């Protein structure tokens, strides 16, 4: 029993972190219809910078996300304005190829500068745990999940309570309609991409503590995160949250009762089964497409 509760709690903690990482991805897809394959590479990039800063200065890696978030916001903005906006209006296939290219470029840069081996930030609390009712809660997981929940809450407030957020959601639902009521869709797209990228500032910092990583880890991460948003329904924030919790639980449960190496495969199996019955994902909606053109 304790074992099961332990696995469930750990799964939810991990799921919270996944939710944060996937939220940026699904936001970008919802607003721009772009699958940002570079999202995983950006996470690894942040993880590297965090790890480097921590190992040189000793500043807490998760706290560093306060700095990394605005940095990544700026990088996201620049990436959109400098690169992605050039192909807006072409087929979505091209944006996949472009972000794929960006991901590989980032991996290449990390390979050349940081070298191709595993790293992990290990602050003092790295191997410590809280014990609550006989369940052990690793401190790093708890802090990571808290940071994730904080950022997700902020994101939710921005999207639901501010004009900017409303403009973003309006563009996500109907770009030309939003343009008609005076929303500059190019500006909103840049903003959404920047916000989506900014979430990697926290996600990557947390990643550097929780998971060992090397430049090519981004493939693993992007396919997990894309799996989450496919499962939840592309473009849906609630879907990303649910998909992330399912992945977290699937991982810890298979690790507890089976073996860790099968956990990702179990998750993909879940995705395939869901897609078999709901091709649009759990929370995905099928809107009419005949009037879009």
């Amino acid at each position, binding site marked *: 029993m304790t074992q099961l509760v332990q696995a469930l709690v750990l799964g939810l903690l991990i799921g919270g972190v996944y939710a944060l990482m996937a939220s940026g991805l699904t936001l970008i*897809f919802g607003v721009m219809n772009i*699958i940002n*394959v570079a999202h995983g590479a950006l996470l690894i990039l942040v993880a590297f910078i965090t790890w480097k800063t921590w190992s040189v200065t000793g500043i807490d890696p998760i706290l560093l996300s306060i700095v990394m978030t605005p940095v990544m916001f700026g990088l996201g903005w620049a990436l959109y304005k400098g*690169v992605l906006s*050039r*192909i807006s209006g*072409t*087929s*979505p*296939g*091209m944006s*996949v*190829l*472009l972000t*794929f*290219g*960006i*991901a*590989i*470029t*980032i*991996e*290449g*840069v990390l*390979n*050349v500068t940081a070298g*191709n081996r595993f790293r992990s930030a290990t602050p003092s609390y790295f191997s410590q745990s809280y014990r609550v009712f006989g369940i052990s809660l690793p401190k790093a997981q708890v802090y990571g999940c808290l940071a994730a929940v904080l950022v997700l809450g902020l994101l939710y407030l921005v999207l639901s309570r501010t004009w900017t957020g409303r403009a973003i959601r309006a563009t996500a639902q109907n770009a030309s309609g939003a343009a008609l009521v005076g929303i500059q869709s190019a500006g909103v797209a840049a903003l959404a991409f920047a916000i989506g990228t900014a979430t990697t500032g926290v996600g990557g910092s947390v990643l550097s503590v929780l998971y060992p990583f090397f430049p*090519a880890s981004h*493939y*693993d991460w*992007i*396919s997990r995160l*894309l*799996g989450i948003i*496919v499962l939840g329904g*592309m473009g849906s924030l609630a879907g990303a949250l649910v998909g992330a919790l399912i992945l977290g639980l699937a991982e810890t449960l298979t690790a507890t009762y089976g073996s860790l*190496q*099968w956990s*990702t*495969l179990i998750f*993909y199996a879940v*995705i*395939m089964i869901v*897609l*078999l019955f709901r*091709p*649009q*994902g759990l929370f995905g909606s099928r*809107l*009419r*497409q*005949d009037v879009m*053109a």
Partner: protein
Amino acid sequence: MTLVDSLRTRTEGRRGTLVIIALFAALFLYPVVLPFAIYEQGVLLLAFLTALMAVSWNIVSGYAGYVSLGHSVFLGLGAYTGGLLAEKYQVNPLWFMPLGGLVAFVVATLVGMVVLRARGHAFVIITIALLLSMQVLVTNFPSITNGSNGVNVPLPFWSSDYQNMPFYYLFLVLLLATVAFAAWIRRTKFGTGLLAIREDEDKAAAIGVNTTRYKVLAYAVSAVPIGVAGVVYAYFLSFLNPVGAFALLTSVTIVLSALAGGRGTLWGPVLGGFVVSIVSEVANVYGGGSQSRLLVLGLALVLVVLFLPQGILPAVAARIARRQAAKKTVEYTDQTGVATKRTPIVVTPRSAPQAERTPAPLLEIRGAAKSFGGLRAVDGVDLTVEAGSITALIGPNGSGKTTLFNLVTGAMPVGAGEIWFDGTRIDRLPAWDRAHLGLGRTFQTTRLFKSMTVLENVVAPLPTASWGLMAKDAVSGHEAERARELLDFVGLGRFGDQQAGALSYGQQKLVELAQVLMLEPKMILLDEPAGGINPTLINRMVEIIRDLNRQGIAFLVVEHNIPLVLDLCDPVAVLSRGKIIAQGPPSIVRADPAVLEAYLGPEWLPAEPVPGAVLDQAALSAKGS
């Protein structure tokens, strides 16, 4: 048809063919002339493999437009199939080449059947996931695959004096076979269907293309050559491990090659494969080793997407075409040619034998409903179209006419109600099955496949679901003849070889009609046939509709041009706020107060009731809105 002919495509032309023949002749002679250029042969044979994979990738991602980012999974599957069996039974792996292709085919089919049913993005994501899962799977089954320790494949049976020369020829021949295979697919109905899916998937379904089957099959056949080559690759490497065999870097190379060379063209991916392999080898040697290779490939991919999105080959072809076009005198097309040169034709709808029978309901809509969120666009419609009639469906903008069309043709699922067509309940059938039953439609704004020629557009529809039909030549024999007849019938015979996108809007409407006629339909749904075209063409459209109707084809027409509707159609049904509010002969419907109210609002009352002229005015103001 000779091999050379079949390898020729429109983009490359005759001079291009000569260049290609000369190039491949040189490649065949190269090891004979310079047998000791072992390093160069090694680079070239990997370029052949890359080109082969890019050509295969192009079938699903170029022709059909569904991008796969994990296509190297099939190389790994083929390699492991051949490698493991050869190791176990200590035989020559080359015997397992067909099996490698088969394994790739089966895996792609299974995965495709799950993710390719819906449109959109799940596919691209699952392709990456598939590659990574295979890595994990192969690592985690050490009892079968020897896990991360890898597989030792038997060494080549030939004398070491020959070095890699047999592999060189093997990959070269496989490459040529793959190109011939891709060229053949492009020529068939299957290939045209894939292009149709890339350009407009809903439209493709509406003209009878079983889009799910096409997409899954495209993915599956694009895996086969790679699976076959994978077996040879295993033999060539002589050692396999999970990370090397299922490498994402290989996928990157495939995508970059096809894209740089020219996605969707026949020879573009070959050119791209050569260029990318050689550039990457050069970067490897002079650019600081394999660490920087990734950086170079990534940057190259970004730059190609940004600055050369159509690829090298199409860019060069466009430049040559421009230079040649400058020398030619321009030939203008004119409307007079369209208006006068029209040949009569016998269009036999498939219900012809029963055409004599008394009018019976051909299409029956019972209580059909469809909501979008809170908006009930179609709210319990009952409508019957008699065989042999021209029934009109009119109503103000937003009354649900096009949505009703979409429900009937299967572009959208019904929320409630039943639809029967010619004795079959169709509301749960996919769009293509409805087309095969003899239900055709045109669209409010024309939706031709703009990059195909007019003739290719007209032969694209598939009147049946037969598998054999897919393998038939797209533009040849009886069908092409038929398509030309139909084009003559709508008066556009001269434009067969023009790009469909180059025609005027009205001409495109006529081509779309000819396209639907290829389905040999029993009934055609016309969505605003006269919208946005000039009066001459409207008259011609009316003439054509009458002609076809006399031959037994029923019509359901949505149109805002009320005088035209009242002249052409009988009966007329009026739709307002998702419901049928009036139905009957034109003379009765035009005086119906409910209809007037629907068009002009409840406040509007005529000073003195003038039955007849009123609805015509109403229509004018409705059109203006």
